[in-house]
């Protein structure tokens, strides 16, 4: 009967609570005012979520249910309808939270103090030293156990995927050059941790094994880390509050890639096109990490930084643009898009492809997409080939660049393969 003793004890404890006068009323009112107040405020100010309507539409309609049952049978449709309902509920919860006016008001100032001054990790952003910010998952790529020692069943083994891609391109007479681009903490570890060495790159535990495995399978891999460390002697090669490199870092990487191509892909003809760098322009902008901490408010919280951007111009003086008839195709993620895509806020026509084009003195074709560096550009290339747009026609080499963190985090989609023939 011990449990009943516990119950009696609990009753007694609660029953013997003593309060100063007015305390129970104050506490109860506080909670009620808080939860109902925030609810009311959010409903009054919300510009997007008609709550009742959303709640009513959470469950699939009778029509959807009968359709699914007819299509998939009772057992399967139970699970697919359940998945749909669950997805709707998760979306609603996330929408309510994201659109919360209270959250929007508090986010930037709270992050300014918690992350900016005290160093709390939030929204995947880590505070470094001297006002630098780092992307948490990219740092985890370096501190983690090594991407080749984790279970690769679901997201694919990058070595296998890159080898297969290399073989598919080789069957078309095209060489593949892979360039995993080091994450910011690789090259500037001293801005994250005082004890980290400033004179060499910190790599993932699997880095060497990865490069050796590619080499053993005949896949050309260009490691631009050393070039970036050398360039760092003249100043930062990564932006302080953005996850990408500075124009200087990108130039160093482009030079390293150009030297690698000249040495390892000698069949690529020397170009003679007179591309030139335009007049440097100063651009001030908030980095992506600053925006993650203070959406819409980064500038207000002094998190902008400036760069000297140089666009590349063609022989005719026109801004650089990809050329599908070139012998080189660059596949790249946001590291290739920064300074190239106007929308990223750091200027246009001066990205990695443009600078590589200038250094190689020949036009370049480029397929780039922000995010999902492990598969997005390969997927777009395959889709183009499938719809008859032969982006590989006349190519000698494909340069595949992606943020090295993709090796730990990316979905490599082993099922993606170049079609055997262009339709």
């Amino acid at each position: 009967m011990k449990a009943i003793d516990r119950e009696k004890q609990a009753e007694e404890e609660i029953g013997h609570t003593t309060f100063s006068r007015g305390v129970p009323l104050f506490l109860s009112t506080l909670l009620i005012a808080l939860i109902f107040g925030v609810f009311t405020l959010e409903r009054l100010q919300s510009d997007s979520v008609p709550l009742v309507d959303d709640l009513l539409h959470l469950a699939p309609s009778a029509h959807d249910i009968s359709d699914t049952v007819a299509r998939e049978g009772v057992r399967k449709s139970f699970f697919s309808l359940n998945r749909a309902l669950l997805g709707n509920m998760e979306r609603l919860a996330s929408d309510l939270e994201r659109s919360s006016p209270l959250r929007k008001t508090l986010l930037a100032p709270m992050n300014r103090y918690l992350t900016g001054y005290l160093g709390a990790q939030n929204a995947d952003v880590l505070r470094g030293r001297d006002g630098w910010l780092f992307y948490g998952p990219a740092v985890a790529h370096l501190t983690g156990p090594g991407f080749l020692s984790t279970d690769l069943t679901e997201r694919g083994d990058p070595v296998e995927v890159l080898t297969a891609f290399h073989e598919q391109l080789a069957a078309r007479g095209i060489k593949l050059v892979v360039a995993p681009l080091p994450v910011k903490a690789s090259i500037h570890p001293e801005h994250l941790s005082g004890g980290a060495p400033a004179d060499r790159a910190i790599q993932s535990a699997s880095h060497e094994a990865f490069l050796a495995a590619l080499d053993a399978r005949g896949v050309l891999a260009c490691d631009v880390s050393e070039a970036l460390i050398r360039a760092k002697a003249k100043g930062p090669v990564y932006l302080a509050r953005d996850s990408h490199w500075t124009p200087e870092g990108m130039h160093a990487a482009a030079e390293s890639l150009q030297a690698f191509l000249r040495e390892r892909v000698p069949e690529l003809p020397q170009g003679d096109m007179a591309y030139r760098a335009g007049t440097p322009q100063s651009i001030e902008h908030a980095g992506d990490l600053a925006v993650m901490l203070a959406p819409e408010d980064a500038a207000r919280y002094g998190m902008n930084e400036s760069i000297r951007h140089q666009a590349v111009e063609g022989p005719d003086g026109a801004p650089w643009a990809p050329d599908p008839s070139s012998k080189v195709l660059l596949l790249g993620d946001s590291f290739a898009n920064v300074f190239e895509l106007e929308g990223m806020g750091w200027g246009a026509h001066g990205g990695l492809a443009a600078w590589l084009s200038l250094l190689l003195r020949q036009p370049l074709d480029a397929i780039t997409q922000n995010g999902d560096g492990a598969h997005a550009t390969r997927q777009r290339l395959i889709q183009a080939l499938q719809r008859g747009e032969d982006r590989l026609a006349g190519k000698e080499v494909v340069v595949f660049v992606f943020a090295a963190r993709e090796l730990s985090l990316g979905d490599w989609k082993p099922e993606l393969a170049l079609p055997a023939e262009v339709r």
Partner: protein
Amino acid sequence: MVFSSHLFLFYFLPAALLLYYGLPKWTRHFFLTVMSYIFYGWANPSFVFLMLLSTLIDYCCGLLLGRDPIEPGGPRTRRQLAALLVSVTSNLSLLAFFKYFNFGVDSYNQLIAAMGWESAQWDTLLRITLPLGISFYTFQSMSYAIDVYRGEAKPVRNFITFACYVSMYPQLVAGPIVRFREVALQLETRTHTLEKFGRGTAFFALGLAKKVILANPCGNIADQVFDAGSRSALDAWYGLAAYSFQIYFDFSAYSDMAIALGLMLGFVFPKNFDSPYRARSITEFWRRWHISLSTFLRDYLYIALGGNRRGTARTYANLMLVMLIGGLWHGASWNFVVWGGIHGGMLAAERALGNRSPLRRLPAGVGMAITFAIASLAWVFFRAATLPEALVYLANLSGPGTVQPGAALLSGIVYQPYYLISMALAAGITWSAPQTWDFTRHLTWPKTLWCAVLLLVSVALLMTQSYNPFIYFIF
């Protein structure tokens, strides 16, 4: 849906309280049950069918048990015995299937592969999803049939009342495990007072603060250190201390909030934590840690196995067995078996040594420190993803080893002022501040203002933090 979420605090809770207090009294259990099913179904709507099945089985078993007279200690009919067996078997079968199917298949396949009989392996394509809180509500539901069988509670005639007990959202998914006899009377009649609501608010504020201000940052440190490929000995100890604080503040915070929400609905749930890291032995630790589980295992398993009534050797074996099962209850993995084995071994050793136990002879502070160290070292098995990872971590704790270059970055993350302050606060509160029950027993204005400030600060932090897991949701 977790208590420390935007959806729960500003949408579910207002709706639940409004329905509970706004509708006629006789509908309260019905709407409480409906809200509990919504709360539970939010994790995965299909899980509600499983909970409903478990509830139906035990409700029917209860009715069967009640068809014949039940006197405490008196004889039981065959029908009553059969009803009890159906309840226990069905609940344990549900638990075993959903919690241990994958583990069983994987272990069998590893064994068969080690013997070179790969062709006899089972297909592992079928993976079972663990329903949220199944470990908790099957225990609760089963306790009802056992309590009725033992004559310690009366069978419930009203299905809604019983469904309300099994599904009650405050303690549904992560406890405390509330046995039927502990709330049977309250289900029939309970008071709703401003004092209860007020103390519930104080409990909730303190629970939310423990979760958001202490458990989350400590959890962030623990995640960084445990997920690292390698770490220095200093980082390893720091990460382990952080995990010890995280699991305590996270779980006790959940219990505090559960008790708080219970009070707001007029229920009084028993204490689940009693400053466990102030224990001076592992035996004492288990009187203070997850009390609802340890007493459940004691009353329904240890005593059923014969307890200490069948000789010394059997007592030790029972202690070990109960802790091994307690370990497995937490999760289907060899890590939990080892964790249970460590605690079972310590309980048996302390029992064997009795007053000769060195821990009893040491000054209180030293005994506390040693007990905390033992409990923390056992947590390594609780936290590490696999047994080999746990062993590597233990090796890291013991000193030099191969430290990868990436480990140098860890210090830049985990020794930030925010984390150092959180760790210092966690240590200070663990060993010198009163626990929630004591703090809220006499609510003066200064204490009340503390609670109010903590509530507001926690909500502000909650609105802006992206890291907010609840450890015990996976058990």
